[in-house]
């Protein structure tokens, strides 16, 4: 009886399926596509990044739609609605965290996918267009990351837009129209936020969906790249026949023989996103987007740290040309790559230039990203009031030298100069400054600046300068010998102190006096 019932249910189910399939006609081509043969060598853990990126994209669409249920894209309310999501909406914080971490993971996986495809020579004939579309997908993904950061409408977003506008303003001739087009108004405001909302929610996702569909369709149409072998040369005349033969000889159906690895990896990645979201929580929002609150240190999101670092470290006179020309060159080179190098070796062991390029670029971006975290070029705005002077630099010092230490703090020298490992790193650390500069050089450097240091001539009176230089002269690192001006010995029979008390005269330098330091000074 039960068995009869079961077969009945089965029959009804099959009938339903046939009813739909007769009208839709989707299942047959879908099954054919899913079970298409792929080279057995391609069923590898190295081939899982594309599908993982697609799964993350789906996650972003889903969480994005859910966030849009609450988010308010208005400059006056966006920040409040994010706080509301974080604190008042049940699990709002978790959805925000999923979307934020999903974004970072998606950028990372897309980049790994790009490197894998490049190293495996998968961009070569006949998959040139797949690569070119992939380059656009990468740019769109980065576009999503940047516009998403703007929608998190906090201080970082506000000043990040200012940076965007300032970069646009450097374009010759059409700079001003570009700034107005970017901001949608004369200042950063609601018009700007609405623009980025439109880009982030409608324009770029639409382009991404279309691009991903094309990208995947082309992978199905042209077949997945086979595992490269040294010496197996890609030739336009023979490649397709070779690939076909490879698939006939040891092809396996993509579903299920190869796809299980994609599925496992995708599940692991989604789980990792969930874990990060759960343990680390959502990104911000940081302070309110109120430009009158200027106590802020704007910084971009992690995917753009390396650009942030690059903008800080470029020589000023090269900055505009590099900002404007480098992206065109880099993107152009990526787009042209498969058209220029569409044939030849695929295996990395036969492409040393490719390996070198990836290594250099990866190391460079890695270093720049790390610098973006530490921002050694930024003055530490609070160092002058918050960082202590190491006690050893005050022990057994004259009143003048201690006064100099106060001048050192009060005049904000600390914001750019480290002492005892604390303070800004914009300028050199000063723990051993008097071994590098003589007294005269110190005075000159303080008053006139130079070498990327402002001149303090207007900000210091003579007694402050004297005290400051007296303090700086005590900073001799590990009791190293101070720098000395050799000409002093010739012009002045009693040169100023160049040895510390109790030090023996160095042999062969009879001009050095053995007097206490700073003679003639109070």
């Amino acid at each position, binding site marked *: 009886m039960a068995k009869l019932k079961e077969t009945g249910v089965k029959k009804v189910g099959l009938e339903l399926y046939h009813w739909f399939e007769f009208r839709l006609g989707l299942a047959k081509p879908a099954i054919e596509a899913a079970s298409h043969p792929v080279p057995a060598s391609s069923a590898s853990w190295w081939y899982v990044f594309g599908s993982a990126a697609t799964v993350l994209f789906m996650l972003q669409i889903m969480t994005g739609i859910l966030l849009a249920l609450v988010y308010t894209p208005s*400059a006056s309310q966006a920040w409040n609605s994010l706080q509301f999501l974080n604190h008042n909406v049940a699990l709002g914080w978790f959805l925000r965290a999923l979307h934020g971490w999903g974004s970072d993971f998606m950028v990372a996986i897309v980049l790994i996918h790009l490197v894998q495809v490049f190293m495996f020579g998968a961009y070569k004939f006949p998959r040139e267009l797949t690569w070119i579309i992939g380059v656009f997908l990468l740019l769109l993904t980065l576009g999503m990351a940047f516009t998403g950061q703007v929608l998190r409408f906090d201080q970082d977003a506000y000043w990040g837009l200012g940076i965007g506008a300032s970069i646009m303003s450097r374009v010759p001739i059409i700079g001003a129209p570009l700034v107005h087009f970017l901001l949608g108004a004369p200042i950063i405001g609601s018009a700007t936020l609405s623009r980025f909302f439109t880009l982030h929610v409608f324009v770029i996702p639409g382009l991404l969906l279309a691009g991903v569909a094309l990208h995947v369709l082309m992978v199905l149409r042209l077949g997945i790249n086979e595992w490269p072998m040294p010496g197996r040369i890609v030739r336009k005349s023979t490649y397709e026949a070779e690939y076909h033969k490879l698939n006939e000889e040891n092809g396996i159906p993509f579903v299920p023989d190869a796809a299980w690895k994609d599925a496992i990896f995708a599940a692991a990645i989604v789980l990792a996103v969930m874990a990060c979201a759960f343990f680390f929580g959502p990104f911000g929002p940081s302070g309110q987007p109120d430009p*009158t609150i200027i106590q802020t240190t704007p910084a971009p999101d992690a995917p753009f740290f390396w650009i942030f670092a690059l903008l800080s470290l470029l020589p000023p006179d090269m*900055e505009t040309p590099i900002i404007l020309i480098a992206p065109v060159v880099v993107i152009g080179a990526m787009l042209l790559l498969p058209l220029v190098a569409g044939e030849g070796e695929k295996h990395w062991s036969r492409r040393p230039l490719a390996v070198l390029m990836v290594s250099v670029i990866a190391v460079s971006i890695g270093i720049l990203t790390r610098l973006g975290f530490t921002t050694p070029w*930024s003055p530490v*705005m609070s160092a002058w009031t918050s960082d202590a002077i190491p006690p050893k630099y005050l022990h057994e010092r004259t009143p003048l030298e201690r006064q100099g230490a106060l001048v050192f703090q009060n005049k904000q020298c600390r914001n750019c100069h480290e002492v005892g490992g604390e303070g800004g790193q914009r300028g050199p650390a000063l723990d051993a400054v008097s071994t590098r500069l003589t007294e005269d050089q110190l005075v000159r450097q303080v008053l006139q600046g130079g070498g990327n240091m402002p001149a303090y001539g207007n900000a210091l009176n003579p007694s402050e300068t004297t005290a400051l230089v007296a303090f700086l002269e005590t900073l001799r690192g590990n009791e190293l010998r101070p720098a000395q001006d050799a000409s002093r010995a010739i012009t002045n029979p009693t040169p100023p102190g160049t040895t510390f008390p109790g030090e023996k005269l160095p042999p062969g330098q009879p001009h050095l006096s053995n007097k206490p330091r700073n003679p003639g000074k109070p």
Partner: protein
Amino acid sequence: MSEHEDDHLTDNLSPEESKLQSEPKSGPKDHSRRVFLFKLSLLVNGAVGVVLAVPIIGYLLGPIFQKKNYHSWITLGNVNDFPEGETRLASYRNPSTTSWDGQTGNVPCWVRRVSGNQFQVFAINCAHLGCPVRWFAQSKLFLCPCHGGAYYEDGERAAGPPERGLFEYKYRVAGAKLMINAGEMPTLATPASAQNANFVPLNKVGCASWRS
């Protein structure tokens, strides 16, 4: 009877209809008229598309082609709010804002009263990439937190990546009020004040709005 009726029906057809009916007889390949009509329909749609594109692109590029001057004269405060020889942070409501701009419509600036009625009013935006510069009275420097640009008290570039000094607003002292000409985020391409900023009488102050 039936034959007669058929004849009758055929007779009743208009010339166009009979022509249409007779067309297949000359073979399916002879479709030049339909091809022509299809091409004509493409042309018509193209023309409609162009006409439609004009307002759409006009709307999209509106912020570029807006010829209206964004700048106007704004009161920053009383002259005596700014002590001589000091540099103070001030802020104003941008002349062209909407109510939903919220706090982003409030723009800060640095006011340096050199002496008497002699002022310098600096934009908050660093000339490098627009971050907010901070004034340090003790070292008499403006420092930028983003990339370390530094400026002297008179706005001149002191150090760091900026290629020029701070952006400066044009100002007027009207009676006891300090006024500046402002309305746009200053960048290397967009000026802090209107190039031809002329003084507006005090009773017109504050009339500026988005559409005026």
